[in-house]
């Protein structure tokens, strides 16, 4: 099975990828320059890795959607960056050399990688908790329509992007029609048992603010979202996590174009919360890129800030060395203020 034909990828489009427009911000170096020019002080905390608990694999940048805030610059045109079967095998071999209990599979829309089901199957066989980071609408596309039942059979945890429990902010961020499609996908997940309180069929929604402000009180929002989605659409989920938008890639482009960049960076820095540092995801997560390069987190991956061994060599999955990786320092830059603001932010939600 090859990569899906991208002209058949039906999904909402809020914008187009930076790469497709040959926009200057498609360059990671340019993004780092723009952040430096804001005048915000460098991120100074020195971070050391703890034991790897989460093995995060980004299988590629192909997506059926092009959301306005995407930190990956994913889209239907991003067919070149696709994890190969060989790299998947290297990931599995590396996974076997760690004590990581969780495999977190992301993209793009990870379901569109032709080796996705093989990767999931192999991780499930190893007894890992497997998370699929899903944009919901992909579950309505041809090759993925059977995935809800397929996931349920294997007990895969689904973490879905849904910026709001109402239509307006969802479609503003992710494109017209996203909300209706997302509700339909949630109905399909509910129909096979997801989101009903069964710990084996856990359905988590992920909220990103639809603008230049931070994610609010998670518990309060979770209660309102549960009630709003149940009352208005009859769908349910197990938990809501809230993630701040990182000032990189397409969100950075929007911040600049809307004149919000400086104020947003100030908001992040002023909301710096030292209590978040110990729980930062870069400390217990290892992030693998589509080409096998290793990073401290998915955001560093998009900024091409490779994890480096103590001698400065870039880490790669083909010469995976847990002991050398444990001795590294985590790479930080100004975007890291996005994870330390307020209650903190990680792929697992709030930290503090």
């Amino acid at each position: 099975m090859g990569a899906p034909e991208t002209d058949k990828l039906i999904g909402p489009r809020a914008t187009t990828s930076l790469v497709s427009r040959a926009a200057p911000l498609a360059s990671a170096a340019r993004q780092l320059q723009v952040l430096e020019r804001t005048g915000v002080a460098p991120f100074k905390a020195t971070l050391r890795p703890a034991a790897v608990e989460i093995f995060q694999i980004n299988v590629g940048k192909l997506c059926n959607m092009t959301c306005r805030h995407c930190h990956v610059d994913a889209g239907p045109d991003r067919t070149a960056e696709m994890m190969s079967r060989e790299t998947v095998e290297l990931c599995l071999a590396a996974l076997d050399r760690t004590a990581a209990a969780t495999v977190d599979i992301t993209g793009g829309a990870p379901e569109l990688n032709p080796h996705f089901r093989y990767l999931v199957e192999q991780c499930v066989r190893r007894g890992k908790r497997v998370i699929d980071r899903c944009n919901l609408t992909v579950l309505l596309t041809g090759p993925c329509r059977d995935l809800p039942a397929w996931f349920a059979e294997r007990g895969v945890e689904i973490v879905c992007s849904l910026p709001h429990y109402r239509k307006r902010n969802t479609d503003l961020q992710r494109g017209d029609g996203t909300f209706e499609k997302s509700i339909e996908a949630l109905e399909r997940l509910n129909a096979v048992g997801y989101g009903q309180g069964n710990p084996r069929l856990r359905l988590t929604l992920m909220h990103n603010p639809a603008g230049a402000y931070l994610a609010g009180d998670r518990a309060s929002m979770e209660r309102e979202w549960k009630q709003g989605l149940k009352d208005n659409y009859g769908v349910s989920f197990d938990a809501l996590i809230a993630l701040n938008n990182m000032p990189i890639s397409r969100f950075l482009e929007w911040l600049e174009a809307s004149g919000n960049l400086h104020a947003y960076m100030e908001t992040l820095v002023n909301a710096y919360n030292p209590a978040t540092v110990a729980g930062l995801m870069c400390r217990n997560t290892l992030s693998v890129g589509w080409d096998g390069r290793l990073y401290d987190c998915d955001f560093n991956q998009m900024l091409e800030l490779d994890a480096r061994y103590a001698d400065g060599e870039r880490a790669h999955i083909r010469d995976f060395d847990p002991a050398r990786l444990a001795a590294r320092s985590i790479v930080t830059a100004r975007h890291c203020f996005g994870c330390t603001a307020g209650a903190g932010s990680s792929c697992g939600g709030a930290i503090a």
Partner: protein
Amino acid sequence: MDAYYRPQHLAKFGTIGEGNQKLADKFFDYYAEVFKAGALSAREKALIALAVSHTVQCPYCIDAYSKESLQQGADLEQMTEALHVAAAIRGGASLIHGVQMLEHVHKQVMA
């Protein structure tokens, strides 16, 4: 000072303690406690604050609670409805006094 309202003043709210720190501390402690999620959610409190901000016509409050409402998960439609509640009460408060007017008129005009 060349303007009565300056956006920078919002961030300097805490300096109001210069003349009486004890009272300022009491006020800010109370303020922080009021906005904690309780029987009402943080989003509901932010929307109430947004509506009141427009009633008292405080630009600092409108700035702060527009952002806070969004941050706590409200969207533009919900925020606009909150404003209409304020506008309805404000308009209603004028109109209800019309009953007093009616009584004056009925008393002073031949039926």
